[in-house]
């Protein structure tokens, strides 16, 4: 049963991601992005990463995607605008991308990956993440705050009217 659900989610992510990339209508792209994000959250749940799954939904679906939808709805005539994805040098691109894909698949299959020793009980990861964030990774938490401060200042600078 679990396996079936996994493959359903997997297909959902793959198909919706392709729609995002290949759709000629921006609105279709944005709404299939919704399916991609939710599918990825499902994969996180399969990995027992409950906190990550919730974060994925709250931040990507709840925040970023809504922002994107608003951006599109509020922009004049963007729905009618045709996006071109006709790319130049298709053959060369296909060869290069195909080669990279082949190497990736072959190496991923041939590599023996270190596996987690116990795949047993579900245990909430929230406590561990909290302890790590305010323990080993405390400094990175603080650095991220300076980074966000800089991004905020920069965004305000770019957005304000005067020079």
């Amino acid at each position, binding site marked *: 049963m679990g396996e079936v659900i996994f493959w359903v989610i997997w297909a959902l992510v793959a198909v919706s991601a392709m729609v995002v990339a290949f759709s000629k209508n921006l609105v279709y792209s944005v709404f299939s992005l919704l399916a991609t994000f939710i599918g990825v959250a499902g994969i996180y749940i399969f990995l027992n990463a409950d906190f990550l799954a919730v974060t994925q939904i709250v931040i990507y679906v709840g925040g970023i995607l809504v922002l994107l939808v608003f951006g599109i709805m509020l922009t004049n005539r963007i729905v009618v605008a045709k996006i071109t994805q006709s790319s130049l040098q298709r053959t060369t691109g296909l060869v290069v991308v195909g080669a990279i894909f082949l*190497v*990736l698949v*072959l*190496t991923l299959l*041939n*590599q*023996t*990956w*270190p596996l987690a020793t116990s795949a047993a009980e579900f245990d909430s990861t929230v406590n561990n993440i909290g*302890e*790590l964030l305010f*323990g*080993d*990774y*405390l*400094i*990175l938490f603080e*650095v*991220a705050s*300076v*980074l966000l*401060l*800089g*991004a905020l*200042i*920069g965004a*305000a*600078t*770019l957005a304000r009217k*005067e*020079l």
Partner: protein
Amino acid sequence: MDLTQLALSLKYFIPEMVLTGFIVVAILYDLFLKPETSHRVGFVAIAGLVVTLGMLYQQQGIPATGIFANMFALDGFATFFKWVVAIGAALAIWMSLDTKELENRRVGEYHILILILVLGMFLLVSATHIISIYLSLEMVSIMSYLLAGYLKENSRSNEASVKYVIYGAFSSGIMLYGLSLLYGLTGTGYISEIQAQLVLGQVSPVMLVLVTVLLLAGFGYKISAVPFHFWTPDVYEGAPTPITAFLSVAPKAAGFAVLIRFFNVALSQGDPNTPSWLALPGLDWPMIIAVLSAITMTVGNVLAIQQNNIKRLLAYSSIAHAGYMLMGVVVADQTGIAAILYYAGVYMLMNLGAFFVAIQIKNIYNTETIADYAGLGFKAPWIGIAMAVFLFALTGLPPTAGFVAKFYLFRALVQFGDGFLWLAMFGLLNGVVSLFYYMRILKAMYFDKMEIPEKLTAVPLHFNVLMFILVVPLLVGWMFGDPLSIWAAEAVQFFF
């Protein structure tokens, strides 16, 4: 993790904390200033950098140590690059104070963003965990995007910023994929523990090569190595010139620092502080870097020949210089890394200098085209002489420090043995090509006939002082026992 343990690390983190303090002070001070006086934030920024350098000086003699649960390292290697970055930033802010491009606009945020960029580079050069590497790399990148697009009404500047963002997002995404593979393979984020896992030999060589190439996309983008260089000319042309000057030296040096640290620690075997250190078996990354180096310097030099805009020309020349510095990474032993450190220091002065001349000529004559430089050698003699020194140094001609810097790089490569002699030959040939286009600027300045354009403004006195500060070390710095090279040799010391 014991919190007292983390608190003990704070005493090794004073320069960064002082810098953060000055960032906050600068933000608050900016609130009280009108647009016309907002350049005063620059004085706070320079003061902050000077105090930070003082704090760095006070860290001398501390043995290499990991801080904050080994997320960052305090070692001679990181400290050297912090000096380069902080001095470069102070000089770039100085250049910004009287630049026409930044006139009549609020520049408070400009200086604040530079300070945050410096903090990001301080962290980047000392990062020893894949998350701290990635976070500080993004900090550097995002601040660079914002600064490149600071001239909002200028479509070139907009283009620079957008191109920078798109290339940057793409290459850091690729690098992130590589890091995630590495984490999956080794189960640890600490680069020294990654080495411990990889030397066990359970990872297939193809996989290692793949990971290396993915990582090089991120690091190569920061140092603008071919084939990740496409953003460089457009960004350098569109960004405000002091920012171009700064981006061409400081983030590049920081990118080299993280590249060297990562490759020498994670993708090697043995302690990088000892001569018995070797690249990982099955992963011939010195050869990958050697090929990258040869291509990078050739592409940079050949494409520079046909440039007519001084900023674009210097952009391609900076690509070529990344190629020269990669020669040192190929050797990656004590002499090779010391040569890169020395080169980074000298390159900071000579490249900032060349851009500074471009800023001055833009200020005085409002042109960036090399053909318009005709006769400037006589019209503005001091600028002409200074430009000659910078260009001689960039070419690597004696009697400038640029020659000594190139000499150390080639010496490291030749001493290493016959394996990379071909690369040294490549480097020499490239030097000849670069001579051609650097001298083209000098030819325009001294030998081309022209009708002399009107001076738009006089050169402010403090700019002459700055020019002096940039020229003199290049001319005499390598004499008197060459203190920089002694320092560079001592600074090759990694936390492991």
